[in-house]
């Protein structure tokens, strides 16, 4: 069977292939193929590290998944066998249900997230939409808040997935607002203002600010004052603010996590412009179950997102299965506490380990990763130098990490390295692997 040619010819023309696909499909296809993420993932799946069976395999440090406390979830399941089975009464499972999620799941999630955030906010089930993971939540909000060709401001470095989630189908442009090490990667309102004005001058409509808090990939937390200033900014410009808080509950340091919803509420801002995203993929290490949440205080957004829910609705048996566990307050408290301890330990060991090579981690208090400065190992202080280093890390050290350029970081040499998919015993292995490069570098 003839395969359609795909080499960079832009939109496939009719004369070459049987029936062209859309130009958005074509550009999406090409961009995926070229990303480091794609290359790294392939190497990992072809040759995955396993301490026992494949000790020389590629170690995956690119996925921000927290496997440190999965044993607690397993334990809960074996202690609660009955609650862990789906009711075989089909009429509970099978017919059409509220398309935006079961009320009992929303209620259970609200309770659980309340615990995670130490009761600093209380989520209202009637202001929640359940989505197929946070990926779906981000895309859905893009469809709600912006038209194709419009833009959103996102402080960079930012989560690599945003490019896909906002652009592929919703057609929304991202204007990165660079944060720099000199400012400790803190967001400055003046850079936001600058980016906003530049966009307006170019005739691009800015509809919202999207940010992650705790930050991915940095791991820092936005303080109350900055959150207040952000709310001032979006109020003045009459635009939306989307706070991606999927890493809430990943703070392991002493800084306090403050949700945008908390500030908006206590300081009397108009909450109809504030929308928050949560998900179980990070906080409970259940990415496979596809549970994301949009919390919005805007009736119109809720009504629209509910209509969109037809396109991403979560399976009812899955929802039902989660309700008992999420409603178990004791489990929540225990899980949160133990997870925090383990996270902190891994973080400290990792930072310590890297320090021996003179590699510094940005001091962070949240997230499942370290934001690491490896610029002293680069041959040239440029994106090219960074990618060469990334390549060496992948092919010589055989560890898969995320280069800062993928996250739109403007300073070359930063890498996001996750430490929650490995165990304490793997840390010395990782360090030994890194030594392959630092040793080489000295020559």
């Amino acid at each position, binding site marked *: 069977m003839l395969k359609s040619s795909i080499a960079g010819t832009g939109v496939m023309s009719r004369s070459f292939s049987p029936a062209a696909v859309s130009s958005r499909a074509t550009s999406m296809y090409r961009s995926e193929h070229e990303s480091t993420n794609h290359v790294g993932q392939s190497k990992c799946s072809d040759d995955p590290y396993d301490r026992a069976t494949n000790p020389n395999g590629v170690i995956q440090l690119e996925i921000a998944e927290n496997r440190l406390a999965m044993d607690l979830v397993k334990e809960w399941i074996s202690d609660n066998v009955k609650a862990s089975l789906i009711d075989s009464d089909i*009429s509970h*499972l099978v017919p059409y249900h509220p398309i935006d999620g079961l009320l009992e799941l929303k209620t259970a999630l609200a309770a659980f997230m309340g615990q995670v955030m130490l009761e600093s906010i209380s989520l209202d089930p009637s202001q929640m939409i359940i989505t197929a993971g946070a990926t779906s939540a981000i895309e859905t909000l893009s469809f709600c808040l912006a038209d194709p060709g419009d833009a959103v401001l996102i402080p960079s470095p930012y989560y690599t997935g945003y490019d896909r989630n906002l652009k592929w189908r919703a057609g929304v442009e991202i204007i990165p607002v660079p944060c720099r090490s000199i400012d400790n990667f803190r967001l400055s309102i003046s850079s936001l203002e600058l980016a906003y004005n530049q966009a307006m001058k170019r005739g691009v409509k800015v509809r919202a600010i999207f940010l992650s808090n705790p930050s991915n990939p940095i791991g820092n937390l936005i303080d109350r004052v900055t959150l207040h200033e952000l709310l001032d900014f979006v109020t003045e410009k009459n635009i939306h603010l989307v706070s991606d808080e999927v890493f809430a509950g990943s703070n392991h340091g002493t800084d306090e996590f403050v949700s945008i919803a908390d500030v908006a509420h206590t300081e009397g801002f108009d909450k109809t412009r504030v929308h928050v995203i949560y998900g179980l993929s990070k906080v409970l290490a259940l990415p496979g179950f596809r549970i994301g949440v949009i919390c919005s205080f805007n009736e119109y957004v809720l009504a629209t997102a509910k209509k969109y829910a037809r396109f991403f609705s979560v399976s009812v048996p899955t929802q039902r299965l989660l309700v008992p566990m999420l409603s178990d307050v004791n489990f929540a408290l225990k899980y949160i506490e133990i997870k925090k301890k383990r996270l902190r330990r891994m973080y400290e060991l990792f930072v310590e380990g890297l320090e021996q090579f003179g590699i510094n981690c940005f001091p962070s208090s949240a997230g499942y990763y370290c934001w690491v400065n490896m610029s002293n190992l680069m041959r040239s202080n440029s994106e090219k130098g960074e990618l060469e280093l990334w390549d060496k890390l992948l092919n010589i050290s055989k560890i898969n990490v995320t280069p800062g350029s993928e996250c739109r970081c403007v300073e070359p040499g930063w890498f996001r390295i996750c430490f929650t998919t490995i165990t304490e015993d793997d840390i010395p292995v990782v360090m030994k692997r890194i030594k392959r490069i630092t040793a080489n570098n000295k020559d």
Partner: protein
Amino acid sequence: MRPSTVPLSEVAVSKTHGEDSPYFAGWKAYDEDPYDAVTNPSGVIQMGLAENQVSFDLLEEYLEEHPEASSWGSGISSFRENALFQDYHGLKSFRKAMASFMEKIRGGKAKFDADRIVLTAGATGANELLTFILADPGDALLVPTPYYPGFDRDLRWRTGVNIIPIHCDSSNGFQITIEALEAAYSEAEVAKMRVQGILITNPSNPLGTVMTRSVLELLLDFATRKNIHLISDEIYSGSVFSSTEFVSVAEIVEARRHEEAERVHIVYSLSKDLGLPGFRVGTIYSYNDRVVTTARRMSSFSLVSSQTQKMLALMLSDTEFTERYLRTNRERLRKRYEFIIKGLKSAGIECLDGNAGLFCWMNLGPLLEEDTREGELKLWELILQEVKLNISPGSSCHCSEPGWFRVCFANMNLQTLQVALKRIKEFVDGRKPKN
């Protein structure tokens, strides 16, 4: 609701989702006053929801006998795998099970490759996803009328793609003709819309009929001539009353030894045949590698939960169960169909000769006061408010001939259906037929 003070997108505020149509309004009336044999015997009977409840007992039995299918991923040991699995390729075991289920439905007359199956959260998501991939905003898809009202939303709303109807009428049992196809294509050309494909539903919703082999050949020839895609939504393929009558576009592709197969894509779901809409399982099967790869990546926005995939992989690989289910389900649907046809006939109402699906296509033309869309809607309103039946008017399915209605018969028990038929008979008897 006051409009948002902070502006929303145009898509968010548009009415392109079509959810203001009578098709959906009738559901609201049902929600407000639902029939119940004991507690609300004069309530609205829902005959506008194409759901399959006739074979629930078989599913329940399966789940009871196989508790491992319905837990956190069949045992503690695989819990971890399950919890972490978010690969957009989907579980191989589930895709294999799906492929073999689809083959079974087609009586082994077509083969399906598990690696060409892309999973999405429901057929709704599958149809929208294919549209995003195959068409740009402003492009058009040709869809034969009458069609499922949800297509207005699924194919157009967020994609910005247009639907141009291929008009079909009762003169030939609503079959697609080459003239109608050409006319639709020209209409798109005149409107300066680039036609990217044809989307058919086979078996048809709302007609309840299967497409003939010759019409399928015609469609593939036309798509080839115009160099466009052909999407076949086959979500009712397992609900054909007699298993031998269904011809899938997959068979045509195989008969032509996969020539021009790259333009063919099939949508399937477990919501109708297996009565599992709550599970949100839809698939795209494409013979086009690029479409498969792209669809897979774009499916990130609507992945099926790993737990659900695992559960269904077990169930669908159980050949004894699936064969028995398909056989029994077909038989029960056929009986239901015959029951409702008989009942309607005794009330003097004719239906299109159907052989599939969860509904029949009923002709109330003789009861219309005027032979127009307005006349049809007036009758629909009357039936909803006075007879307390929610049926779907043909106009919400874009039928060009007034007077046709879709009536679902599988989403209720037999007693409720009897009550509904009684009400219809009383209504018809009480009205004078138009002269």
